[in-house]
């Protein structure tokens, strides 16, 4: 009896062996599932949101909805800006639902948590919306790609541009969250390195619709030449609105460290005009971006921003990698992504570094005056292109354990 059992189990083992080998190459579960983790119902809805999911779907359709004969599916998750919820659901996605890759991930806290889970489960996480540089430093791992912007890029680009305009003394209004603190720290470093000084900072509860009059008054009292807003979405918009109301905008330079086109659309150019900021993409840069934007607008009635364009690009590049390698195994795909350039409407000549940072050109924009805007969503005027090499933190300064320094 025992001998029969032994033979039977050996037989089963050898019978399944070829299938086990198959799981290493080839596409697991016979379907490529892409998960878009974003804020579908809260403060960051316009920053990422349902439009990012549409962008992912567009990428899948543009690729033909199939990879090596296997279908591609897009699933989405509303992280509600809650780390625990996102973590639990993403774990379930990876363990039970056969999701192969996650993308978007606005909200730095959520991005950090999900990136760790992706590394644990050996699945790829593309971080588009979140900005914390910890993703490519202390918390780097071989399965995360920080794709669009980060606090270093916006800090360096903004600080250098404003210092050149004569803004030497700075005051920060910072969102009391990971991305805000990270940005304040990095921007301060650039200001000091460029011969400026930081007169003070105030950190406020973020994404709660607080009133900014008291904080703007503190910024005015500091007599700083520059007021830097290390916050995003409605907080930035409310801060600027309040600053105009209190007559601060004429007297001090305002620099927004996380401006997106959705914010300018919400504010309107009369409020936003003259604001300087660094962004990773704009719909009106060239023919390719315009063509994408037109198709996107037809589907969503909104122009895409960096997050939507970035999400599209991550899905497209992922599918290209799976197609080229014939596998959705994370190690195989990551090796391909790190070896090949990124060339699409989001980035030209972009590449993924060993620390997971996707290096590409960044841009310095200024919000147009209302009379300069010729059409709806014609908001940005390009002031400078920040070439890829100088835009992001050099590897020599990296705290990532994967970088040998």
């Amino acid at each position, binding site marked *: 009896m025992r001998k029969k059992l032994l033979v039977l189990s050996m037989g089963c083992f050898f019978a399944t062996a070829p299938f086990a080998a198959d799981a290493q190459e080839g596409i697991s579960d016979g379907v490529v599932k892409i998960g878009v983790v974003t804020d579908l119902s809260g403060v*960051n*809805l316009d920053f990422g949101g349902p439009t990012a999911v549409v962008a992912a779907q567009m990428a899948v359709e543009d690729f033909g909805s199939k990879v090596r004969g296997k279908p591609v599916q897009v699933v989405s998750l509303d992280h509600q800006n809650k780390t625990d919820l996102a973590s639990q659901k993403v774990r379930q996605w990876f363990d039970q639902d056969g999701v192969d890759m996650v993308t978007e991930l606005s909200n730095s806290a959520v991005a950090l948590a999900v990136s760790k889970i992706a590394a644990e489960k050996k699945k790829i996480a593309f971080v588009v919306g979140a900005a914390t540089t910890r993703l490519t430093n202390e918390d780097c791992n071989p399965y995360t790609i920080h794709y669009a912007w980060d606090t270093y890029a916006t800090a360096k680009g903004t600080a250098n541009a404003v210092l050149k305009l004569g803004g030497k003394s700075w005051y920060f209004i910072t969102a009391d969250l990971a991305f805000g603190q990270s940005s304040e720290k990095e921007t301060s470093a650039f200001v000091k390195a460029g011969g400026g000084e930081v007169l003070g900072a105030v950190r*406020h*509860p973020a994404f709660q619709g607080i009133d900014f009059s008291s904080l703007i008054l503190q910024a005015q009292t500091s007599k700083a030449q520059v007021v830097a807003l290390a916050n995003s979405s*409605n907080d930035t*918009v409310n801060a600027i609105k309040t600053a105009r109301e209190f007559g601060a905008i004429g007297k001090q330079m305002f620099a927004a460290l996380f401006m997106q086109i959705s914010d300018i659309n919400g*504010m309107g150019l009369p*409020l936003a005009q003259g604001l300087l900021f660094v962004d990773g993409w704009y719909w009106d840069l060239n023919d390719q971006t315009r063509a994408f934007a037109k198709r996107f607008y037809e589907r969503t009635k909104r122009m895409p921003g960096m997050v939507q364009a970035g999400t599209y690009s991550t899905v497209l590049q992922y599918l290209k990698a799976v197609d080229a390698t014939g596998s959705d195994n994370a190690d195989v795909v990551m090796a391909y992504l790190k070896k090949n350039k990124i060339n699409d409407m989001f980035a030209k000549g972009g590449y993924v570094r060993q620390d997971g940072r996707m290096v590409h050109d960044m841009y310095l924009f200024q919000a147009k005056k209302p009379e300069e805007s010729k059409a709806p969503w014609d908001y940005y005027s390009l002031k400078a292109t920040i070439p890829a090499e100088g835009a992001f933190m050099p590897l020599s300064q990296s705290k990532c354990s994967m970088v040998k320094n």
Partner: protein
Amino acid sequence: MEVFGIPTQALLGQLVLGLVNGSFYAILSLGLAVIFGMLNIVNFAHGAFFMLGAYLAWLALDNLGIGYWWALLLVPMMMAIVGACIERGLLRRLYELDHLYGLLLTFGVAIVIEGIFRDQFGVSGQSYSVPAQLRGAIDLGFMRLPNYRVYVVVASLFVCLVTWLCLERTKIGSVLRAATENATLVQAFGVNVPLLFTATYAFGAALAGFAGVLAAPIVQINPLMGSNIVVVVFAVVVIGGMGSILGSIITGVSLGVIEGLTKVFYAEASSTVVFLIMAIVLMIKPNGLFGKGVAA
């Protein structure tokens, strides 16, 4: 001269700004206190009414060209109708039941209203400009105080005072207060108590809508503005005493000032200080600072 490292003038400026926020809290908590005091309903939809008021003002301007001053008059009336419909159609059926059902229902109404607007408008919000007559600012030397903010304080406190007078010093107010204590007896006197209840809820909604119009030029109007503020307003009402009209006004203004001062000294705690105070007050005086005890 400096107080705790802040120049006196800057501190004064912050006090003034705290007063402005306080007057918002006062008018919103007044509406909540009226509804709870008179109807024993915990109106979680109050924040949604506030948001609805702001959006109606914006929609009126954007689609019908109806300006701010007309909106100040018309929006509360529209909100009163909305409130009356909700009370008549939904809340009325829950009076016999536990308070909790009213709370759940209004909470559900709030989520629905917020969801509809979020779906329609996104969260980046809409801009509403300050009416021409109130533009400009008073130069106080250490800061420029926008005229509109001064007007907000005056308008809210005026409305609060009028409401308090009506409820505490007029006949209709006393009838309403009597109806709260013993509805059956008052009805026996020939007063149409159900109508009184509908009117009260409608009035509370109108107050929230009025606050919404006041807020429209100050904040970016977005569907989340109601849920952001309603939790703080509830804390204010609890601290003031759930049934006390005067209590909610005084507490609202005071907490606005306290929150403003917290923003100066330790801004990170500015959204938690109100709840800290609420916890302390509930431990010492469970009925709130001005509360007289809640009818079961």
